[in-house]
């Protein structure tokens, strides 16, 4: 079993408190960072091969280095705690069980990017995590960790999946509806309130203190050639022990399912979603994939948020797609025509098929519509929707056809 890095404190009594975190050596990395030059912090994170754990897998140190050197105004650090990707629940665990790891990660990151103000955008439904994290922030203020050059504002969302997309999140943080914005400009150039902004996921920033404390080489060595570290895999669906599992990013999907107790239900695997609802589905004979960014990309899917949803042989794939199609139709923000129209139409067509009124050529229409819209929209939401549309239909076409009228 790989080393426990992110979940190292979960088993401690009152792990969410400052006393417990300090007792486990917490804030030692921050002490070290305070005497380290910002550029050296960025360098260390670059060398660690840390890649964003929120979805896109972008190299974290490189993102930080995009803040314009010439910029003299404010720089903001925004934490994406709007966890909403179907099948993902790791950030909830971090906020509830180790909130000080995030505060410490933010302190170090803020120094690296020269930010004096950070925002933590927590999804509105996460009331308990929000209370826990707010309490940790208060403790950090009382202890003088915050308020001396860096402040944290905890912000609650109000229910909208699209606010997890970083520019949608920034719109929402600015007091607007959560409409994504065209990139470029990227947030690092023009982000929150028009200023250079780094948006990072909760788990990504929780990796930063261990990297600073134990060194980039150690962290890089935990992972694969192109991605360092361990990460928290959320495993749910038809497994015997659903839950969050920390493992090296070099673990395979097969090993991960075994760690979660193996397949439940019929005990025979049919398909797995490897990286949250928006990842292309894998069949039972595609699970030897390495669960890092490039391993999943090579298998034609994505690691995304590392939300693994397991389906045994008794699961209806058309019904599973209908659930996701309904979700995308509901959550499209409506700005882009291909996304707004296709998500609605595809939901209707999949619904019709599941109800037994579909025609076989509906399947070609779904594939055609899905393939046309890719890459044409303001944000990656729609690309995330077509992953399931295409892969479910192409890989399980027979099952869809069996429901269709000839």
């Amino acid at each position, binding site marked *: 079993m790989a080393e426990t890095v992110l979940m190292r404190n979960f088993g401690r009594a009152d792990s969410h408190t400052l006393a417990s975190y300090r007792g486990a050596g917490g804030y030692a990395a921050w002490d070290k960072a305070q005497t380290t030059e910002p550029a050296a912090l960025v360098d260390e994170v670059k060398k660690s091969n840390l890649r964003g754990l929120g979805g896109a897998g972008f190299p974290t140190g490189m993102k930080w280095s995009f803040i314009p050197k010439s910029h003299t105004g404010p720089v903001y650090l925004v934490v994406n705690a709007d966890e909403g990707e179907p099948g*993902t629940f790791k950030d909830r665990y971090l906020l509830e069980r180790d909130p000080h790891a995030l505060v410490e990660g933010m302190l170090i990151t803020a120094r690296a990017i020269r930010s004096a103000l950070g925002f933590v955008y927590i999804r509105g439904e996460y009331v308990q995590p929000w209370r826990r994290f707010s309490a940790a922030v208060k403790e950090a203020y009382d202890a003088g960790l915050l308020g001396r050059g860096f402040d944290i504002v905890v912000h609650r969302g109000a229910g909208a999946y699209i606010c997890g997309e970083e520019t949608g999140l920034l719109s929402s943080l*600015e007091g607007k509806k959560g409409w994504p914005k065209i990139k470029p400009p990227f947030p690092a150039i023009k982000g929150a309130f028009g200023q250079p902004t780094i948006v990072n996921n909760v788990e990504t920033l929780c990796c930063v203190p261990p990297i600073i404390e134990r060194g980039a080489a150690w962290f890089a060595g935990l992972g694969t050639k192109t991605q360092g570290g361990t990460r928290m895999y959320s495993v*749910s669906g038809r497994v015997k022990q659903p839950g969050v599992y920390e493992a090296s990013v070099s673990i395979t999907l097969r090993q991960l399912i075994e760690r979660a107790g193996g397949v439940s239900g019929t005990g025979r695997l049919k398909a797995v979603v490897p990286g949250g609802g928006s990842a292309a589905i894998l069949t039972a004979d595609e699970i030897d994939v390495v669960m890092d960014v490039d391993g999943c990309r090579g298998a034609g899917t994505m690691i995304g948020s590392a939300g693994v949803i397991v389906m045994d042989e008794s699961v209806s794939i058309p019904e599973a797609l209908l659930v996701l199609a309904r979700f995308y139709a509901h959550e499209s923000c409506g700005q882009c025509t291909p996304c707004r129209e296709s998500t609605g139409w595809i939901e209707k067509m999949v619904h019709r098929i599941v109800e037994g009124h579909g025609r076989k050529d509906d399947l070609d229409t779904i594939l055609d519509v899905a393939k046309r819209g890719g890459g044409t929209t303001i944000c990656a939401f729609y690309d995330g929707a077509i992953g399931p549309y295409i892969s479910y239909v192409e890989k399980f076409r027979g099952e869809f056809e069996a429901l269709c009228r000839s």
Partner: protein
Amino acid sequence: MSNGAPPTSSRPPTERAGLAAPATIKFSPEQLAEVRRLQGLYPDARGALLPVLHMAQDTFGYLSLEAEAYVAGLFGLSPAHVHEVVTFYTLYFQQPKGRHVVGVCHNLSCHLAGAQDILRHFEARLGIARGETTDDGRVTLQAVECLCACEAAPMAQVDDRYEMQLTPEKIDRILDGLR
């Protein structure tokens, strides 16, 4: 659940027994101080709009057009802007809601764990369909998207709490506890 009767949620607000809107839409002086504190946290005061809307909903029960206009006034924004924001997010209610809100997740992992049966059990016990509020204003029932507690599927949010690994018996106990 369709039996020809109009869905409860389409009745005019006055006939509803949920949280009645207070006669005047106004924050207390302490709340106004809190609004100013929140506005001061952001580089642009407008950043506090979502938090203040949460406050308004907690205070007034739901976000009526009057409440929207009132909040707009506190920000120097147009009521149309605030309306656009309120309608975008699922946690803001434009109509009176029940004293308790139950959001049953019906996304993929919960679906695999029987979310539809869970929803039907809630509907049968409450005598309403998803999207509706009981006549006595006790509970609003919703089907919601992934609440990111999929390891505990099937699950639901009941007011501030996540209720995990639901069974019909557990649902009965939960509902019995809602006054």
